[in-house]
């Protein structure tokens, strides 16, 4: 049974198992530090499709298939499918759900969708409503660029605090029994707004949400940052990570030893000139690909998302942000 602890934290009493997971990435991701861990790397961004939207969808379907294969499950075993992505009306998720054929719950948590999906999948399994739930997310640099910023070939000089949307997709098969990492706790984040307006500076806009969720998680569970081998935020990049470190220090938490950010881990030196990676796939492929294979005992994934749209930004509104945390035991 699933119970609540403290203000915002969920305790999974049966600790659902991550039976299998699939990670796929684009060419740049394949060349980066996360590349060797990915199940599948596409050599080009179009992936043989007519549009980048179709390419993104292909990645999500591929990640789901890999996750099912690794978990030794077939499509008919999937009780529910939960997915979210960045595109308007979450079309990557909706069309992938059509392909998969399983009962579907579409979610939108921007780049926090990875943690949000796993959190909800955990609840469905822990409550006894499902035996197997697939949770998936995806992002594609070119689809995100055209929706949030400029046409792909438009020549724009980006500031050093901007981030590069990760091309990739990931899926997890969360099941009631079996061998594998276990979803133990999750903290549902609050939407935070501290007056940031620059849509190119997402790290700074999302850092307060990440810090708030980390602090709340520690308060609710009575744990300390040291109880985790690693605490990792989703896509704050270099700038946002430094802000979280400072916020934590002021709050009396020491994150200097075991805190990293997926946006900083996804690309290597010289691959990009700005503050790091971002996008739904950023936290997903780094966590499942790289961090699941590091002999950790306990990992806290804090996926961060910005809840703005181009409309809200152009109308002069601030960028609100959210972060969801999921604790995973190995």
């Amino acid at each position, binding site marked *: 049974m699933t119970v609540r602890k403290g203000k915002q934290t969920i305790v999974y009493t049966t600790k659902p198992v991550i039976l299998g997971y699939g990670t796929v990435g684009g060419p740049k991701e394949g060349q980066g530090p996360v590349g060797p861990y990915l199940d599948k790397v596409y050599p080009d961004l179009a992936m043989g499709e007519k549009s980048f939207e179709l390419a993104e969808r292909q990645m999500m379907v591929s990640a789901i298939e890999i996750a099912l294969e690794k978990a030794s499950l077939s499509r008919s075993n999937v009780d529910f499918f939960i997915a979210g992505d960045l595109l308007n009306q979450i079309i990557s998720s909706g069309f992938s759900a059509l392909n998969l054929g399983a009962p579907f719950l579409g979610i939108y948590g921007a780049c926090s969708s990875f943690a949000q999906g796993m959190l909800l999948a955990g609840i469905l399994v822990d409550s006894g409503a499902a035996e197997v739930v697939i949770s998936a997310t995806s992002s594609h640099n070119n689809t995100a660029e*055209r929706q949030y910023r*400029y*046409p792909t070939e*438009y*020549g724009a*000089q980006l500031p050093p605090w901007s981030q590069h949307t990760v091309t990739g997709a990931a899926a997890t098969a969360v099941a009631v029994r079996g061998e594998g990492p276990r979803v133990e706790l999750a903290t549902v984040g609050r939407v935070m*707004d501290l*007056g*940031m307006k620059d849509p190119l500076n997402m790290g700074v806009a999302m850092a307060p949400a990440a810090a708030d969720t980390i602090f709340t998680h520690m308060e609710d569970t009575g744990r300390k940052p040291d109880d985790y081998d690693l605490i990792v935020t989703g896509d704050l990049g270099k700038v946002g990570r430094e802000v979280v470190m400072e916020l934590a220090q002021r709050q009396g938490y020491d994150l200097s030893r075991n805190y990293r950010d997926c946006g900083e881990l996804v690309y290597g030196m010289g691959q990009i000139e700005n503050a790091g990676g971002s996008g739904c796939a950023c936290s997903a492929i780094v966590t499942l690909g790289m961090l699941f294979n590091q002999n950790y005992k306990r990992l806290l994934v804090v996926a961060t998302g910005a809840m703005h749209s181009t409309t809200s930004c152009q109308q002069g509104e601030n960028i609100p942000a959210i972060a969801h945390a999921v604790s995973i035991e190995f």
Partner: protein
Amino acid sequence: MKDVLKDPKAYKELVKDKNPKPKLAKNLIMAFVVGGGICTLGQLIQNIYIKYFHFPPDRAGDPTTATVIFISGLLTALGVYDKIARHGGAGTAVPVTGFANSVVSAALEFKREGFVLGVGSKMFILAGSVIVFGVVTAFVVGLISALF
């Protein structure tokens, strides 16, 4: 101590010096070199039109502009222009080549939505406001020069 997470002003103060500084000197020099390079190329093309195609100097500007726009469009379609612009900054944005890039890149991007709703209507998504305010300014300036 006041909780920074509840105080936008204190937060703004905290993040103020966290952002890395843009490399101003490097960006200025690159903009000068790249922008100047594009203009030098334009001048070279103009001279060719005057010398070899016998255009009068005051009318050689038109084919020159058309040629530079063509080159910019071609480089955009080949995926080169945005890479130059990443270093050139304002040097690639300000000349007419930047304008051409904004139109061609939008046309390429929205081709999948068809020729009417895609290319046709989205082509000026970036350049549209330049045209609108350019025309308005020209009208006002023209009016003033006609009156006085």
